[in-house]
């Protein structure tokens, strides 16, 4: 917001340049008052809330046996409302595309680690990968799943980057792009195949195969989430 666009020498007083010079103090004060009024209104609205309507928890419990997993959050994320999750994964891929379109990454090779960072990743990284795998597996019946596991993998990537760990050259090439979109690609492809089955619907997992399908999707999604988070930390295209 502090950047000033180059002002055309012929730009009139009403052109976009004016907005960047900031508002006069009076307008600023008015704006603050208006925002405070909106905030007060929201607080009043929240205070006036009655008892929440019975949500969908009962409906989830009722159908969870058909979902292929026994943890309600995973059932909602990967089955009942799997389409939302698919689009959220698309948002992550989009974030990488957006970041890459703006500039290049600083690169991790130049990071010179201190004594702690030099040793820590050697101990932590394998353990974190192991915990990620555990979180993925346990998500079927307890808190966990692809997003938590993927965040851990992203943490591994960030740790390696900070410690200046040299990545092999292929890791910055097509392999990076493939692993970033893998989650969305697997999820969407299985979702379309499910629609093509006789009597199927998009993302409609047959109960008998649901567990396998969900685990496959989560495995791909975990990898993509980890790669996307690490790529966003690197901050630009390789």
């Amino acid at each position: 917001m502090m950047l000033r666009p180059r002002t055309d020498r012929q730009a009139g007083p009403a052109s976009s340049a004016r907005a960047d010079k900031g508002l006069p103090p009076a307008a600023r004060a008015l704006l603050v008052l208006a925002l405070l009024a909106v905030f007060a209104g929201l607080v009043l609205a929240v205070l006036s809330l009655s008892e929440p309507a019975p949500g969908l928890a009962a409906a989830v419990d009722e159908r969870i046996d058909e979902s292929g997993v026994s943890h309600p959050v995973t059932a909602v994320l990967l089955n009942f409302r799997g389409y939302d999750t698919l689009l959220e994964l698309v948002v992550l891929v989009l974030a990488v595309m957006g970041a890459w379109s703006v500039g290049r990454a600083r690169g991790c090779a130049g990071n010179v680690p201190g004594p702690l960072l030099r040793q820590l990743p050697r101990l932590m990284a394998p353990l974190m990968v192991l915990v990620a795998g555990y979180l993925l597996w346990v998500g079927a019946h307890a808190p966990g799943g692809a997003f938590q596991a993927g965040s851990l993998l992203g943490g591994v990537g960030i740790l390696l980057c900070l410690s200046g760990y040299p990545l092999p050259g292929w890791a910055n090439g097509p392999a990076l792009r493939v692993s970033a979109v893998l989650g969305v690609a697997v999820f969407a492809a299985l979702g379309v195949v499910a629609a093509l089955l006789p009597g199927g619907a998009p993302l409609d997992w047959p109960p008998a195969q649901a567990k396998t399908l969900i685990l496959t999707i989560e495995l791909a999604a975990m990898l993509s989430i980890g790669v996307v988070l690490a790529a966003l930390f690197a901050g630009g295209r390789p």
Partner: protein
Amino acid sequence: MPLDPSGPGLAGPAWMLAVVFLPLAGALLCFLLPRLAAPVGLVAAALTAASTLALTLAVMADGTARTQLGGWAAPLGILWRADGLSVALLAMTAAVGVTVSLYATAYFRNDEHERTFFWPLWLLLWTALNALFVSADLFNLYVTLELLGFAAASLTALGGSAAALTGAIRYLLVSVLGSLSYLLGVALIYHGCGTVDLALVAACVPDAPRPAMQVAAGAMIAGLLLKTALFPFHFWLPPAHGSAPAPVSAVLSALVVKASFYLVLRLWVDVLGGGGRWVAELLGVLGAAAVLWGSVLALRQERLKLLIAYSTVAQVGYLFIAFPLAVAGGAVAWTGALYLALAHGLAKAAMFLSAGNLLRFGGHDRIAELDSAVHRLPLTLTAFALAGVSIMGLPPSGGFIGKWLLLEAAFEQERFGLVAVILLGGVLAAAYVFKVVGHAFTPAARERRIRAVPPGMEWSALLLAAAAIVLGLTLPLISPLLQLGPASAASAVTLAAGGGA
């Protein structure tokens, strides 16, 4: 579980699947194969447009198409629903989308960086638009809004100049603020109704606790108005739309602001059951102010793309003038506003593409120095003028039909203030269109350095402008899709018969 137990056929659901997943698959492929981004993207665009056409025909033949995603029924799962309103906007998106894609192959030919990132981002933007138009779930709509906002902001920044980055960041912040405000409303509705399905929420709203529902509706609509750039929330639009590459500006102005307008309309008509009278009046006043303020500022611009961007601010205003008219019983006003939205989509895209041609041709878009462009780029200037005809609202364009229907409703209700604004907006539009055309016809004072414009870029602009004109002749075909109230059918058909269209 069957696709839809109550639906008339399988064609609609299958094409809905195609219009969402084809552009998504195209975007992923473009990202994976950066060298082949343009041809792969063009194929994906063509397939998406063809599926949209098939979906439109299926809905026109069989009525509303429905799909239960994951095979789960409404409160538990997410529904897709494509009715007349949805397919009208999907079809406009496809028409603009496929033409902009053609244009973009030529526009980005010599810029590898912009080309490799334009295609995946643009196809994801198209995915988000299509997903938004078929979604019947408040939370899923939020996800599509986020996808749309991020794709649009990334595309805005594609040019890489300081102005583009500033515009894109402001756009991103505004877009996120709008989405969060919408999400706040969704949370309050879920609290009160225990569901986020549009039809179930619509059934619940009349009995739900009042203050919370009013705040929810207010938060959602305010967030969407911010994204639609209704006056006084338009401040972010000209810098963003004015500094993006031409195909991106076309898509932002023609499609992205229409998506949030569509959602306002969907909530207003289908979920909130009409909304309050004074809210409609407020929207009408803001719309009228937008028409006048946007037009006057457009007239004062000295850069072509900013002029076109301010014209969008004005044209968005017309869409909201319909609210007080429709609430007072003139459902024909909805048809008028939607007709204007479709016509503006086609015409505004044509204008931005023309501006891109002039920019490519002369290396600048200063209106005063457009002299003699008409001799070198006759097709581009024809496109600009034809698009201008629709923006002004002259017959037989789509813009004319839309304004005519709005005027009809305004006269019927004796709202002469709104009549005056609608007419004055048209006069001001004529003034700013002729300002550009006039300079383009002026003989050059001196030789300027110029660059050739690929014919594909000229023809795409002309194609869209011609579509905006032809839209005015297809009222009988399109008006059945745009029925949002019982009264609008008769009136629109009368006009079609009387107009000899």
